[in-house]
Each structure stands twice: as C-alpha cells, then as structure tokens.
C-alpha cells in the first residue's frame, strides 16, 4: 500500500485506462479485444486485465461459488479483494510506466450486481474508493432480449450466480437470468450520468461500434507516447542505418 492511499479520481499517471462495461452478451469483450489488437498495431504497449482473475483470490471465489457459500456481502467483498489485487499488480504499475491498460469489466460491474443483490449503493461505492478512475469507461447498451438470445445461443450452461439464482427470483434459470440482467441494466443506466459512462449502441454492427471506440480512444491518447518495444528487424536495421 502506498504511504498515502490515493482515492478515485485523485491518481495522476502518465498511462491511459480504458474499460468496458455491459451485461453478459453485450459484445463488450469482442470490442475490447479488437481495440487491443488495433492499439498494438499502432505501436502502443497495451496490457489487459480481466474481472475476477487474480490467482490468489480466485480459488476462494471459485470454491465459494461452487459450494454456494457466498452471501451478497461476501460476494461483494471477495470480488473487491480480487479487484484490489489487480489494481495493485496489473493496473497501477503499467499506468505509472505510461502504458495503456484495458479492463474487461470494472468497478461499475460490482456497483450494478451488488446493489441488485441488496448491498447498499453507498457502501459498495466507498468499498471501491481506491480504484483508479478510467480515462474512458465504455458502456455497451444492449436490449435485454438481444443479450439473452446471444447468451442462450452461445454458451453451454448458465451459471448459478451469473443468473442471479441466489436471489430466488425464479426457479427457472433462464427466467431468473432475464429478471436479474434486467435489473442490472437499470443500475447501469443510473450510472451513465453518475460516472460519465460513454454509451455505445451495442445493436450496431461490430465494425461501426469499433470505429466509434477507436475514434474516442484516439482522442484520449493525445500526448501518450508510443512505447513499442523494438522488434528484431528494427534492431537489425539499427546497426546499418546511421541514427538521426
């Protein structure tokens, strides 16, 4: 922990942080991965951080989910622990070094899910007070039926917590998913203004959405240096061509 812990909006780093948010099936991960490839082809060093991926905390989350041991409170706290680990290891150091950091889901995912589970909105916001404020936070706005179709068509099985089955909304997992995700959409919509989320219409074609993202990111990258690591070819040419 730094000597004086910086709170949301107070960090000053040379790097840039772009994050995507939206319900399952909104297509945000596809868009982020396209953006990642483009940034690298443009010569930026971009690192990637995914929700719920810290190795040490993951086992606790996994076991807690599998054994259905999690209450809304511990669900919230274990995800915040995971996020803290990623903030301290994967997000802050590259930002300090001037790199571009991309995150699939961010604190707004927790604000939406935890509040739908009954956790107090103010408490969960203060819980994540240590988070770095993103340079741009994209929200992929998706009508519920579009997302549901994508999820039902694509993945093998819906998971207990992802469908909000712990909330006893319905015995039918698909019905529960629909109600749960519907409520999450409501929370996201409230946050658009609260946190200045940049809305992308996720019903547009993949290409159109990506163009829009790249336009906004290009603007936000002004002043960021391209820090591409030289490749073998570049290094080989260094020896031959005179410098400057």
């Amino acid at each position, binding site marked *: *922990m730094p000597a004086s*812990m910086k709170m949301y909006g107070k960090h000053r780093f040379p790097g840039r942080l772009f994050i995507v948010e939206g319900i399952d099936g909104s297509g945000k991960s596809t868009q982020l991965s396209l953006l990642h490839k483009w940034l690298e082809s443009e010569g930026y060093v971009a690192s990637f951080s995914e929700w719920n991926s810290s190795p040490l*905390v993951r086992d*606790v989350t996994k076991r807690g989910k599998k054994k259905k*041991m999690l*209450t809304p*409170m511990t669900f919230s*706290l274990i995800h915040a622990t995971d996020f803290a680990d990623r903030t301290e290891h994967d997000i802050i150091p590259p930002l300090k070094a001037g790199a571009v950091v991309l995150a699939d889901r961010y604190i707004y995912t927790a604000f939406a899910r935890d509040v739908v589970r009954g956790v*107090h909105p103010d*408490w969960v916001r203060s819980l994540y007070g240590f988070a770095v404020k993103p340079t741009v936070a994209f929200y992929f706005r998706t009508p519920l039926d579009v997302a549901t179709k994508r999820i039902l068509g694509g993945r093998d099985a819906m998971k207990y917590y992802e469908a909000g089955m712990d909330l006893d909304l319905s015995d039918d997992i698909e019905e529960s998913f629909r109600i749960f995700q519907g409520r999450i959409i409501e929370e996201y919509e409230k946050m658009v203004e609260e946190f200045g989320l940049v809305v992308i219409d996720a019903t547009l074609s993949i290409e159109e959405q990506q163009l829009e993202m790249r336009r906004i990111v290009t603007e936000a990258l002004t002043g960021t240096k391209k820090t591409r690591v030289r490749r073998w070819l570049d290094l080989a040419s260094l020896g031959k061509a005179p410098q400057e």
Partner: protein
Amino acid sequence: MARFSFFGEGPPGIELEELKGKMVVLEGTDGVGRSTHVSLLKQWLENNGHAVLDTGMTRSALAGKRLRQAKEGHTLGGITMSLFYTTDFADRLENEMIPALRAGFVVLTDRYIYSLMARSIVRGADPEWIANVCSFALKPDAVLYLRLNIDDLVTRVIQTKGFDYWESGMDLHLGADRYDSFVEYQRRLLAQFDSMVEAYGFEVVDASGSIEEVFDDLKQRIARVVEPERASGAGKGKQ
C-alpha cells in the same frame, strides 16, 4: 426495540430484532494475551451456564485457509490484504456471529474490526475508507481493550513466542531487524488503538498484571454485560 445496531448500513437480509445474545470483543496488540483470556473466559462463561461462540481473525470457512496462505507468501498488496481480512470477517459475522446471537449465545471475539482498521491504517490505508468498509459490522456490547505499553509488550513477546514476521510488520521495512521493526510496528498499532478508545467506547484493561489479575478484571466487566442484574452486587465472588 432492537438491542443491536450496525455502525453504518448492515448486510442485506438481517433482522436486528431477532438478535438476542451478547457480543463482547477482546482487542489489543499482538502479545497482550488476548487468546489466553478468550479461552479462560469461554470456560468461565460456560461454567456459569452461558452458551459461547468464540471466533477470531482468519478462521472463516470461506477465506480463512487462503488468507493464512497469502500471509505466508507475502505477495498481496496492502489494500488487497485489508479486503481479504474484511471478507474473512464478513463471512464469520454473517455465518457464525449473527446466527449465534439469534440463538442467544454470548459471542466472544478475539479481535474485531478495530484490529482490521488499525493494521490497515498503519499500512497506509485511508482511515475514512477502511472505517466505511467496516461499517457493516454490528456494534458490540463491550470492547475490552487489553493494553500494555511498548516496553512491557516487548518483554512479554521475548519470553513467549518471539517476533513473528507479520507481527513485526516486516513487510513495512520499518527497522533494521525484527526487533526494531517489531517495536516500531507495535508502537504504531498501539497509537491507532489508543486513538480509538474514545471514538468507539473501548474499556481499557490494564494487561500488565498477572493472568489471574487480568482475568478477574475481565470477568467483572463481562459480568456487567452478560448478567447485569447480578453484576451490580458482584465483586470477586465466584461469578
């Protein structure tokens, strides 16, 4: 009216009116004898006919094992450790302490959110942030703060178990070796606990006496909470 309340907003789904038991917290720095007294007090309370739940840090079913492993590896950052401890605490609060209070138990806990806050703040956490994070906790009936000054604490730790990595705050690089580090780390923790005495209504218990003396002191204080009607007349008898 409910006997209990939360510091701030509590976890969802808890009816405070249902909580009938009593909650007593033992707090203090490392090496003041908290765990010794928890086990003595548990026995004494049970002998007097009270059902007792004793609990303490890193003992949760959910996160306890992993948290202890994380401490051995020394790989987690400060904010992460604070939240990991809070997760462990929340699991015990919801799945052990609250059900026990519902059933009318005396909950005797070795450390509470105060230790969690003190160690976080000493490691650089924003005090307001960690207090907010911990605000879902129940306000206990009594917080008995076992206090030793730093010199007595050092003497006691040398005589017992020696200087542990975490209890010496070695992750903070405060001193040249474990002794220097232990003294500086515990001094800072002590300052944090002292600053909480008034804000959180701690009862300061002088821990410099013999085990028997401290135990007698604690018994009287707990009797006031657990058996208020009898405690008024209770001195040193066989309470």
